[in-house]
């Protein structure tokens, strides 16, 4: 009995050693300001190295059962032409989508001195943060604002790697943002995953708050709208306003996102 208990504990020894090693890595990473965790992503371009083969785009897998006899030279030539046309069609569609999203954006923004880089969602990690395309290759920096086609802020870049970045969106655990209202009251914005909590930092007059904006005083590139607080209940305590806004917009692969940068 005792023997089996010892074996029971011993079999975890290596695991505990590796957990200790992981803890050690976390400590080193903490004191080296994340140099260690950024080392591998800094060395390799992950996203730009992954290219979906044309064959996959053309759904060639459905042709696996076709007869050998069908593979005559004429068919191959026609197929190749079709493939090329299909690739051009997809490229054309992508460009049209891009133009459309830029057209939508142009309608909603006022500042044309900035360059708006289109970006797209790659995946969502375990802590509900989104990985988006574009990183240091577009000169993105942590803290850069990410806006949608309506010109509203959807988050900011938490971390930037060679060719992708991590977006801190409204439902991200680390979301922490500062914004100004039209009376220049500072609001701190935090998230509990389902709701955004807006709290004014200074005592303010008992006025209704409407749209909050980003501001250069907080290191933002320009003034972009965040949320219109007017439709929501605004509670005032000690002259400080708190507003709770449910998060309704969920980012999808179809979401059109832009990162404004100075030219």
């Amino acid at each position, binding site marked *: 009995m005792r023997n089996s208990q010892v074996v029971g504990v011993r*079999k975890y020894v290596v695991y505990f050693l*590796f957990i200790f090693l*992981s803890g050690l890595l*976390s400590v080193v990473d903490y004191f080296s300001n994340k140099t260690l965790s950024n080392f*591998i992503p800094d060395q390799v371009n992950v996203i730009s190295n992954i290219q979906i083969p044309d064959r996959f785009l053309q759904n060639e897998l459905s042709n696996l059962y076709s007869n050998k006899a069908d593979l005559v030279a004429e068919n191959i030539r026609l197929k190749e032409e079709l493939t090329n046309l299909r690739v051009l069609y997809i490229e054309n569609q992508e460009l049209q989508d891009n133009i459309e999203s830029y057209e939508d954006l142009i309608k909603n923004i006022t500042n044309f001195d900035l360059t708006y880089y289109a970006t797209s969602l790659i995946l969502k990690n375990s802590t509900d943060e989104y990985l988006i395309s574009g990183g240091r290759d577009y000169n993105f920096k942590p803290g850069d604002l990410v806006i949608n086609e309506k010109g509203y802020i959807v988050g900011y870049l938490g971390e930037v790697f060679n060719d992708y970045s991590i977006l801190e969106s409204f439902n991200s655990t680390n979301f922490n943002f500062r914004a100004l209202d039209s009376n220049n009251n500072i609001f701190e914005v935090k998230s509990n995953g389902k709701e955004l909590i807006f709290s004014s930092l200074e005592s303010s007059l008992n006025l209704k708050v409407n749209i909050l904006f980003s501001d250069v005083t907080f290191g933002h590139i320009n003034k972009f709208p965040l949320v219109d607080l007017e439709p929501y209940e605004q509670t005032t305590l000690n002259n400080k306003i708190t507003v709770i806004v449910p998060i309704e917009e969920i980012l999808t692969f179809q979401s059109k996102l832009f990162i404004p940068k100075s030219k």
Partner: protein
Amino acid sequence: MKVIRFISISLFLFIICLVENYLNTFITLNFGVYIFFISLIYMGTEIFSQNLVFPIFLSGILYDSFFSTYYLGLYTSIFLIVVIFSNYLVSRYRGSSAIYIATISICLLIYKIPILIEFSLNYWFVSYCVSIVVNSFIFFSLKRALKINV
């Protein structure tokens, strides 16, 4: 040969982890399909071995480096703890389905700990309960399928 084996298992685990993230990006319902988590539970309960520690460690390091904003080693530790805990529970309170479901429930809490700490109970509780049902079902199906194949 051993090194190649370790590296290929690590890469395989990392790919499963990647697929899990892709899957959950598509799923906008109030639950998650955690295939990598199920793999960890399977490794802990069915094929537990000290040889698996390095591949799990390496896939955790890769995940921490590429997809996490937390410090390097956090998810690695979580992955290893999930395997140890699932093995401990199943070998201690041997075998019924209830034990497996309890193991999945407790380990899912460990697996999602960064979210649980940051957010309140009402944010994650429903999603957590539904995820237990979905992932237990997948786990039992996988276990059965692999048993039949053997």
